[in-house]
């Protein structure tokens, strides 16, 4: 009951903050057939700036951080990503009328991480003044890559079983490298490296940081417009994808929260860090994941996994999971 009350309060606060409003506004605009669109070049610029800001900040803080503190949460992130994919493999892939490849690609996407959800979570935590380890966003790749790799490996093992000729042994190294080359992870890692090795100073305080909120608002507007536009695609595939997309973020977030809690009691991972871990677990990859999966699991129908993640998964992760896990942390840690 307390959780529900907390959630309601946290959700109400968020409705006051414009973050959620832009997401919903984007959906309404798309639904009303508005001709307003944000050009693709702007979208890519925004994603770059947001991830550079997150990376630079993380890098600057890691300098002072005790890196051993990062090791255990990083391991737990990898575990979370893999457990989420396994769950999709065990549950979604067995549902009636679901093709194996579609299920496993969808699980991979939901096991992986979304840059926009992460950015929204950071803004909201900063607004509510909940402290977290600045390196916590750097857990992103530790969850993202294992999830994608595992999904691709499972798809490939399945193909091998089905017919010997087509089932090529997946090259795990190649998949990892391919993930790191994606535009989102490249930007994040570049930011981390520059933050760590140089002194970004005024570039950070005068550009990347002040731009963060404003550009995020535009990104959320785009995510909202995309969510609505892709609903049509989702309608063309089995309903189970919609159901999965509705619940997976919450379940994944709970797994992340549980393992984060473990890190809290063992290595003193902060409550804010636990929330970040829960939210990246709840999020689903929207930038780098789809092309990686498309290339590696060509037989999977992109409409199923992109429809599920963009139209339902991301809105749920942002609008429901962020307030939910803040409320849960409030209850558990008495913030």
């Amino acid at each position: 009951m307390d959780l529900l009350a907390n959630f309601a309060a946290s959700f109400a606060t968020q409705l006051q903050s414009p973050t959620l409003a832009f997401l919903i506004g984007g959906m309404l605009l798309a639904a009303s057939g508005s001709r307003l669109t944000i050009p693709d070049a702007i979208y890519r610029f925004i994603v770059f700036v947001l991830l550079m800001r997150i990376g630079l900040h993380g890098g600057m803080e890691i300098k002072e951080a005790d890196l051993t503190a990062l090791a255990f949460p990083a391991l737990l992130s990898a575990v979370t990503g893999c457990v989420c994919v396994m769950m999709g493999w065990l549950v979604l892939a067995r549902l009636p009328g679901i093709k194996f490849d579609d299920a496993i690609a969808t699980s991979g996407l939901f096991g992986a991480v979304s840059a926009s959800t992460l950015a929204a979570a950071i803004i909201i935590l900063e607004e509510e003044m909940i402290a977290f380890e600045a390196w916590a966003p750097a857990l992103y790749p530790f969850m993202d890559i294992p999830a994608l790799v595992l999904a691709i490996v499972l798809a490939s093992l399945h193909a091998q079983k089905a017919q010997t000729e087509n089932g090529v042994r997946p090259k795990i190294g190649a998949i990892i490298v391919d993930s790191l080359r994606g535009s989102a992870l490249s930007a994040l890692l570049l930011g981390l490296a520059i933050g760590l090795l140089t002194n970004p100073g005024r570039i950070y305080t005068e550009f990347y940081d002040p731009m963060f909120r404003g550009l995020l608002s535009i990104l959320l507007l785009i995510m909202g417009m995309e969510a609505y536009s892709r609903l049509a695609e989702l309608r063309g595939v089995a309903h189970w994808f919609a159901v999965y997309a509705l619940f997976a973020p919450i379940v994944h977030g709970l797994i992340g929260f549980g393992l984060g809690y473990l890190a809290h009691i063992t290595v003193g991972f902060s409550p804010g860090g636990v929330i970040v871990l829960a939210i990246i677990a709840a999020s689903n990859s929207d930038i780098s994941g789809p092309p990686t999966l498309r290339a590696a699991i060509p037989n999977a129908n992109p409409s199923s996994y992109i429809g599920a993640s963009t139209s339902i998964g991301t809105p749920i992760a942002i609008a429901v999971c962020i307030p939910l896990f803040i409320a849960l942390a409030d209850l558990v840690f008495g913030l």
Partner: protein
Amino acid sequence: MFYKATKVTIIAERLLQSGILKILEAGGAKGYTIVDGSGQGEHINRKGDRASVVRAFSIVRIEFIQTDDASARAIAEEVSQTYFKQYSGIVYVSPVEVIRTERF
């Protein structure tokens, strides 16, 4: 003076571009032209220049001309064989006439 030649047009997902270009170069195409596009086929819907979270799925239209019709068709067949069983895309061939044969 105009000389007969064969134009091959390949419409494919952007992520296949580099693989397709390798086949073209291996097959002896002396040049090619690429144009970005969007489209609709059997598979997913691709929108135009509005922001899209799945830009890698947008379409490229690659065309090349060869005076050697057989070679052009062989490349077309190979691209189709290699990619278009699994990935989105189409290939078509059309007759054209070019001016400077040494370039094709």
